[in-house]
């Protein structure tokens, strides 16, 4: 049975109304100290934000630290697996004179989600079998999908078929309230969105599914909305590069790196015998027709980047790792010396007799050696770019390009097995600690994960198994929803090996909310929802990540003094394998990848603006380093790159590639701060 869309909309209306009322109460309760012309704002403005005297709260240690801007706190919230065109493909900026680069502005689709005059720009192709791995398919080997040869269709994959007593979507709000990291008003969202369809079949909730000839399709219709679980699409390093279809032979003035983004369904259909992603990568939401409504409202009132990129091609682990380090992890002896991993070395060379099935879909690659499988085509392409690229792969290093669990468990015990041995790569946490600047990583369900880790280690010290621990300890089972690979600091010996350091800097989402309430928020905070709320397709939904974000913003609304000096970056780890039409700037072997949304929410970034400056995850590091006066993390980390110099004829392509922004130009630190309520 399909979910009743009307009922969903009513629920969303109730949710939005409730949040608005809550925000209004919050707004009223702070009285004259709040609002665009408030004393707090004026104080923050006149404070000079660098004299060390503090301004909003004398008990707040973060106020005592000199900063480049009035921002004394930054919170980086990271969702899962949504691209810019996938989420904001149909969005019209609200700021006066603002423009955006998306599916609608390019004429690829119309505002109602139907095919636009330039729909062909999103055309997808099949490729005839090739003898070796490629990232730029030969023109004569490509055939567009058509009515006579349909592209792979959207698939339910592992989408939940029905509600459950024990997993999302739950059968009742009461059962769903095991999840405490969202407002109780939003818990209902954890009960909705089951597909009513079996796993791994064509997703007939999607209009025209089974007959889609080629290109993009809206995830909107009588039987599907952004409150529904949908099939995932795989996104691993070698598949992602191949999907982009990059070759200098395709380069133009406005596409100087020659990536065509036209092999998305094809690669999903062919790289693996077991993968069922099929055509899911071509689905998109319509923000102008009520979808992703909370994100849209934030974009309407604050600032959205339409040129922010996932920093690594591929998945969750490598992207979060770079977010914390500006670099890639590598297999080592656990003491900092690079060694050869015992297994999972990637070999994307197609198996004989297959169209494109990889020989080994592995997690590590020795990209410093062009004789290794799959490396030469990528390095050759990077060397051919019209600017100098440092491949940045050291000899003898096997880099982690796909998801591998950290060498530490959440409780600091060694995890062993084939997990990445304890990492020596320097993190932003190390740099902040050296300067005595407070910071923390707040992970959803972290406390439960620690309990499971303790039990797992007690049960089997040499091979602790958190899954077995969850089955043995149902009261803490939610701990399996804590994302280990999302915490870049959980890989690091410098953070995890010392119990005191770990306890100070690795915490639960509930601690983030408490810190906001109690004025103990660190200068720099990373927030990651658990697996039920992270917005990941198939296991979560867009509106659940919205609910997580909204819960934190509501906490800030309730503490206007803190909010006045806090910037919130709302972003994602990667585009999740979804198609994106944006320009991509290759920086090194690992990335960049497609665009992902970045919302900049603060009193200094209001007005519904769109920021076009090229940026990626390392830009967050650059913002922190500039604001708190830190140096780049290492000599090879990506935060060494300069800020882009705008090309006069194209704001999206830096004139000085490779370059990434430090995000300061997404704020207006010279104007008056505007303490808009976040929940309106």
């Amino acid at each position, binding site marked *: 049975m399909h979910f009743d869309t009307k009922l969903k909309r009513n629920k969303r209306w109730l949710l939005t109304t409730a949040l608005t009322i809550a925000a209004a109460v919050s707004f009223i309760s702070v009285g004259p100290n709040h609002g665009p012309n408030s004393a707090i704002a004026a104080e923050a403005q006149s404070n000079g934000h660098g004299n060390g005297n503090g301004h909003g709260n004398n008990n707040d240690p973060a106020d005592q630290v000199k900063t480049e801007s009035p921002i004394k706190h930054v919170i980086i919230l990271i969702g899962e697996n949504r691209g810019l065109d996938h989420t904001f493909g149909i969005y019209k900026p609200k700021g006066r004179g603002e423009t955006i680069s998306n599916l609608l502005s390019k004429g690829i689709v119309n505002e109602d989600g139907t095919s636009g005059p330039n729909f062909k720009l999103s055309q997808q192709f099949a490729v005839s079998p090739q003898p070796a791995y490629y990232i730029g398919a030969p023109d004569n080997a490509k055939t567009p999908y058509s009515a006579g040869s349909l592209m792979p269709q959207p698939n339910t994959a592992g989408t939940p078929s029905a509600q459950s007593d024990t997993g999302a979507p739950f059968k009742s709000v009461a059962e769903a309230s095991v999840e405490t990291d969202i407002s109780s008003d939003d818990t209902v969202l954890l009960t909705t969105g089951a597909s009513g369809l079996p796993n791994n079949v064509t997703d007939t909730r999607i209009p025209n599914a089974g007959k889609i000839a080629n290109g993009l399709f809206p995830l909107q219709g009588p039987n599907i909305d952004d409150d529904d679980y949908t099939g995932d699409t795989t996104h691993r390093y070698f598949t992602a590069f191949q999907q982009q279809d990059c070759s200098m032979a395709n380069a133009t003035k406005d596409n100087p790196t020659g990536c065509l983004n036209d092999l998305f369904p094809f690669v999903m259909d062919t790289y693996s015998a077991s993968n069922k992603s099929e055509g899911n990568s071509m689905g998109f939401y319509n923000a102008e027709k009520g979808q992703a409504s909370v994100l849209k409202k934030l974009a309407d009132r604050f600032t959205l980047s339409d040129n922010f990129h996932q920093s690594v091609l591929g998945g969750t682990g490598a992207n979060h790792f770079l977010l914390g380090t500006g670099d890639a992890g590598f297999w080592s002896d656990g003491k900092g010396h690079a060694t050869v991993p015992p297994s999972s070395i990637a070999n994307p060379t197609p198996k004989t007799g297959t169209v494109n099935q990889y020989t080994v879909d592995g997690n590590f690659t020795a990209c410093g050696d062009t004789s290794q499988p799959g490396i030469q085509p990528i390095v050759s392409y990077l060397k051919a770019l019209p600017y100098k690229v440092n491949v940045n792969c050291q000899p003898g290093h096997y880099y982690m390009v796909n998801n591998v*669990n950290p060498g530490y468990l959440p409780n600091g015990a060694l995890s062993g097995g084939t997990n990445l041995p304890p990492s020596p790569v320097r993190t932003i946490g190390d740099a902040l600690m050296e300067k005595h600047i407070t910071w923390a990583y707040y992970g959803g369900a972290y406390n439960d994960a620690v309990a499971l880790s303790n039990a797992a280690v007690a049960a089997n010290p040499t091979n602790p198994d958190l899954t077995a621990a969850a089955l043995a300890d149902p*009261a803490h089972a939610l701990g399996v929803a804590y994302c280990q690979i999302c915490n870049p600091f959980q890989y690091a010996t410098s953070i995890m090996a010392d119990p005191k350091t770990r306890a100070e800097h690795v915490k639960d989402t509930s601690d983030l909310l408490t810190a906001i309430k109690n004025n103990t928020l660190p200068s720099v905070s990373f927030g990651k929802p658990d697996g039920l709320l992270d917005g990941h397709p198939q296991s979560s939904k867009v509106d659940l990540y919205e609910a997580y974000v909204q819960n934190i913003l509501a906490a800030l609304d309730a503490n206007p003094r803190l909010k006045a000096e806090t910037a919130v970056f709302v972003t994602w780890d990667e585009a999740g394998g979804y198609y994106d039409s944006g320009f991509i700037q290759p920086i090194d072997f690992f990335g960049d990848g497609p665009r992902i949304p970045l919302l900049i929410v603060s009193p200094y970034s209001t007005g519904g603006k769109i920021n076009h400056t090229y940026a990626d995850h390392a830009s967050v590091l650059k913002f922190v380093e500039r604001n708190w006066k830190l140096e780049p993390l290492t000599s090879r980390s990506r935060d060494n790159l300069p800020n882009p110099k705008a090309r006069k004829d194209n704001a999206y392509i830096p004139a000085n590639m490779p370059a990434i922004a430090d995000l300061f130009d997404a704020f207006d630190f010279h104007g008056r701060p505007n303490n808009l309520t976040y929940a309106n």
Partner: protein
Amino acid sequence: MRVIKVSQKVPIKPCGLVGTGFLDDYRDIDVIRDFARAASLAAAFFGLAVLSMAARAQQFSADIVRTPTGVQAEAAAGKIYVSGNKVRIETPDVSDGYFVVDARVPHSYFVRPDQHVFMDSRQSSQLTQILVPVDLDNPCRQWQAMSIIAVANSPNGAWTCQRVGHSTVGGLDTIEYRASGPKAGVMRSWIDPRLKWPVRLIMADGTAVDLKNIQEQPQPASLFEIPPGYRKFDPKALLERIKQSDVWVDPQQ
């Protein structure tokens, strides 16, 4: 010193002090059966009187106090309520619910009132496996039974108990046992012979667990019941959902 070893397959007999377990035990006794017809009325009155006294004696509440190794100060570790074989444990270790145990069945559940769900408690708290009424001659029988349900009836090692002797704990005359269990390790236990309850434990890691402020009084039956309409939670489905996300990393890949 007597050493008692308990097979992991030993079925747990009804405790025989309250409810049907008491009557079942007495039905097994030949002498009662032979004289039952003639003395049934008197025996029934007598039996009910004993039952009533025993039931009263085994209804109590107490504070659970924990003293970690090397620490002088004790810390509150929850509250226990007992009515015969039924036990309710509330502990800050898992603060969003409570455990209910029936040592006679045996079963052990964790109840989350806010979510209207209950679940097998399994190994969520070691207290549910140890704080149960015990047989004075062989407490390992009950601990063995509880450890088997804690591992969901999968293979498990045997518990062994060594009776050490009498000693006084908190003014109570107790029987001390040294016990060894497959997951608990070696622990020491002091059992109140009147309550037939462990009132002090020293766990394998040296942490002491004491029952203090024991209040013998009737306990409401509702304390030990799973409210009607509650659904049973099994973490398997949650795990399956999480396996669809990037949170999950396939150990084989």
